[in-house]
């Protein structure tokens, strides 16, 4: 039965109420043999291979949105960061900051969603912490997750590995998450069929690694969107990138809402998409590998890497023009993840 009532300061005090929350809610959904040790630190078997570690804090507003919630997002965001280095994500730690007065039913919904996301990604939550702050000192709840994964021998993926001549691919439509969060905020009153793309990408990444020995870079274009992530890759790899605007997948409803709000989908956050840079000869194999995964059905080849004017990203526009595609600058959208 779901727990009733609201979060009180007692729930974070370490006493009986804390224990009830841990036992009745967190353990119920996230429990496993490691978390079940209930000791000061989780003890894990020594893995073989290099470790990849990533941490991220999630403060998205609103906490529930079409396509996901802060719980699934907190799992996907960190799992994806670990997977972008070629690692197999194994473990997560989770820290909650709860605002006094949060409905326990909402917390349970978030935690159940985290559990489902962790199950799909194949990761275990091995350590956790909960703090409660007074009303107004946080907004409903914030979540921090840290992910640990293992990188297979001999694999070196990174944003500095792209080479001139490589192909640039994206795993599906861009801008879905950012525009959904914007539209979910109060007052916009939009009734468009849009949803966040929040999803785990580790299985998709594993498929790519298997299919393409010439894989150079995986990157999930979260804050700052596709445009910013590509600029970072161009700068770190010392190459230029040329994109074909018409090839970049954009959902028509997302495009329409962006039009209304004056937003550019290329700068909006994604939470279930990756950029893949690969030896151009293996681009068809990469495309097939992505499309074989549930989260890569909309994959497309969108451009190529060049050697001149290192650090610059160009876009050939749909109408036949050409311009720079710059990094995000100015005021970013707040609290989108």
């Amino acid at each position, binding site marked *: 039965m779901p727990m009733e009532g609201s979060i009180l300061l007692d729930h974070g005090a370490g006493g009986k109420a804390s224990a009830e929350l841990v036992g009745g809610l967190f353990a119920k959904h996230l429990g496993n043999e490691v978390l079940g040790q209930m000791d000061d630190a989780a003890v894990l078997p020594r893995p073989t291979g290099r470790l990849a570690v990533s941490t991220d804090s999630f403060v998205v507003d609103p906490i529930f949105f079409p396509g996901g919630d802060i719980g699934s997002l907190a799992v996907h965001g960190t799992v994806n960061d670990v997977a972008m280095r070629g690692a197999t994500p194994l473990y997560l730690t989770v820290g909650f900051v709860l605002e006094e007065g949060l409905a326990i039913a909402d917390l349970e919904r978030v935690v159940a969603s985290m559990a489902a996301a962790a199950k799909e990604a194949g990761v275990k939550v091995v350590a956790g912490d909960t703090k409660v702050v007074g009303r107004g000192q946080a907004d409903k709840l914030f979540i921090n997750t840290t992910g640990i994964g293992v990188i297979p021998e001999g694999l070196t993926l990174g944003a500095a590995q792209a080479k001139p001549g490589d192909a640039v691919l994206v795993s599906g439509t861009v801008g879905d998450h950012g525009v959904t969060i914007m539209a979910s905020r109060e007052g916009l009153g939009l009734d468009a069929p849009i949803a966040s793309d929040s999803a785990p990408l580790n299985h998709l990444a594993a498929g790519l690694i298997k299919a393409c020995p010439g894989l150079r870079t995986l990157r999930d274009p979260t804050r700052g969107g596709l445009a910013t992530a590509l600029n970072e890759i161009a700068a770190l790899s010392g190459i230029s990138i040329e994109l074909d605007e018409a090839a970049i997948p954009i959902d028509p409803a997302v495009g329409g809402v962006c039009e209304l709000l004056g937003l550019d989908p290329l700068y909006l956050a994604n939470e279930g998409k990756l950029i893949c840079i690969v030896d151009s000869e293996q681009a068809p194999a990469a495309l097939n590998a992505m499309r074989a995964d549930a989260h890569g059905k909309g994959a497309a080849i969108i451009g190529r890497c060049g050697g001149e004017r290192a650090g610059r990203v160009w876009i050939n526009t749909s109408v036949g023009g050409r*311009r720079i595609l710059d990094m995000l600058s100015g*005021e970013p959208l707040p609290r989108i993840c």
Partner: protein
Amino acid sequence: MKHVDEYRDPAMAKELAAQIRRTSKTPVRFMELCGTHTMALARHGLHALLPPTVSMVSGPGCPVCVTATEEIDRAVKLAQTPGVVVATFGDLVRVPGSHASLARERAGGAAVEVVYSPLDAVALAEKRPDDQVVFLGIGFETTAPTVAAALLMAEQKGLTNFSVLSAHKLLPPALAALLSGPNLGLSGFLCPGHVTTVIGTACYEPVAHEHGLPCVVAGFEPADVLASILMLVNQVEQRRSEVEIQYKRAVRPEGNPAAVALMNRFFEPVNAPWRGLGPIPASGLALRAEYGHLDAAKRFDASVPPGKDHPGCRCGDVLRGLITPPECKLFAGVCNPSAPVGPCMVSAEGTCAAWYRYRRED
């Protein structure tokens, strides 16, 4: 979105560009008066499609860019006033005034709320009856009627905690000031589709007939812009100077009398300062005396000393089409979108921002 997609058809745009290249013989320099056109040209990379004989120069049509420093200072002063919530379009928040921007005031604890429409500001006033909500009215004849609609709504709801700080600008006096100033070597104007939808085409008649400069009222999709440039090129090549409407799906020669009437009900023309152009007679809008209770300039102390601009900033010359952004010493160095010095770099529709984002290596 079918209506819009038609004007984004790559084949149509390419054909129009080819026609421009075939038709244009005389070197020409057209000014786009509207910031949205500046953005459309840059974002779709249209400059790359034009022949060397056709150059486009930006004019004073970005509302944020022409907002004078002292007008920003006044908004900052209101934001510092206890009990006042300043509601504004997002673009304006980062524009530097003489000493501070609204963004800096907000970080320091001032209540500054970003809204998407003046009606949202009215809703904010309803939701926060204990605060005084001041909406910063900026923009041309396109936005002034929507602000008038917000004022009407506030009146009808009997709200006593909503007012407008008007820094609205009018296009025709600025156009006249531009033409009476130093010779800009222009061959014609790409006229703003949205403003003209409201005010109609009468204000362009003297430009075409007395100054001999072709005027074409243009839409905002790539094919609209290219079709309009082609119409301008045709006029020049055929030695005509007329007012033509390309954006026929929105614009009527007489404009929108209902919108103009609503605007005139609440506002009247006043002398106004323009960033870059200086003071221009009867070029701004102030609330009429009978609406003093809705006028933030009357209800609060919004007096400020004359504004101080960064000495090296040449936004004024950019706004008059005298120089291109890279000719300003601050461009892309001290002044960039993350740390804008002048308003042309702040606004998404600013000439410097567009050049920085899309054409830095032209």
